[in-house]
């Protein structure tokens, strides 16, 4: 930005450095956090107490001034995150949000008809499971800790991490084991 070089408010070097930071943030970081929580109950407890501090333990820095609340899915509760006002999102651990997260249909409807919204993502939550929707703010961001799928007891960390997609940490889908490819004869 030239106004910055003229007025020395900010430097072009800072923009370049921040682009590198943005590029370094992908859902793989969130997946790393989730897998660690699945495998280590004491870490999970710390993560649920203070999401930011637990992520920082894993070397994930928070470049913004936000708090992170991690929401644990259970057999009885399914969590979903949204930002009704704009596009707040747990960027340090997930990177930048997808366009649909920033557009009106998701922002408007997630808080009033979450089951219908989830169904549009192919996610059907049983009626006896409560759905909790958390609305992000400038200062408080959320991350969903998905349920570990059954049948993954023998999985390696890398195999588990592959199940933890961005959308499972937004809460629009559940973490699932990919169905075996059916071979047609």
């Amino acid at each position, binding site marked *: 930005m030239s*106004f910055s070089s003229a*007025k020395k408010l900010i430097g072009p070097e800072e*923009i370049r450095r921040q682009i590198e930071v943005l590029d370094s943030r992908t859902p793989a970081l969130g997946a790393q956090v989730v897998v660690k929580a699945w495998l280590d109950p004491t870490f999970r407890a710390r993560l649920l107490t203070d999401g930011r501090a637990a992520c920082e333990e894993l070397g994930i820095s928070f470049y913004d001034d936000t708090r992170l609340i991690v929401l644990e899915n259970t057999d009885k509760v399914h969590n979903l995150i949204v930002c*009704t006002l704009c596009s707040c999102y747990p960027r340090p651990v997930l990177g930048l949000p997808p366009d*649909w997260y920033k*557009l*009106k249909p998701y*922002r408007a409807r997630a808080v009033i008809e979450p089951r219908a919204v989830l169904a549009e993502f192919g996610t059907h939550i049983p009626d006896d499971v409560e759905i909790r929707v958390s609305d992000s703010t400038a200062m408080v961001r959320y991350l969903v800790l998905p349920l570990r799928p059954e049948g993954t007891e023998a999985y390696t960390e890398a195999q588990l991490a592959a199940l933890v997609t961005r959308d499972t940490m937004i809460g629009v889908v559940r973490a699932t084991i990919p169905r075996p490819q059916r071979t047609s004869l």
Partner: protein
Amino acid sequence: MTDTSALLNRLVNDIGGAQAGPIEQVEHQLEPWEKRCHALADVLDFHKIINTEEKRRGVESLGEVAIGKLTYYERWIAAFANILFQKAILTPTELARQMDLVASRSTSDEVRSNDPAVRSG
């Protein structure tokens, strides 16, 4: 809610619970200028020049028509300019001069790329 109370109670960004159509699961790789815009927002925030709330209010004050028609980062960059004017950090004249400079730079790039001497192939 009557129209009047709806207008008074809700700013244009405040759409939680509003009626809306189906979710189209669209996404795109950011254009280079969009990523620069995002990084600029972060750097302005680090320097406490424009914070997240100011940015959101800046977008809201573009008004419903502009919000509906501009893309996400177009709204941001327009909001940044307005906020910097309001804070007297930047003047419209300074921005206009700089935009002219950038425009002339890209024109000379175009001239160069149309020059058969530098065109590849």
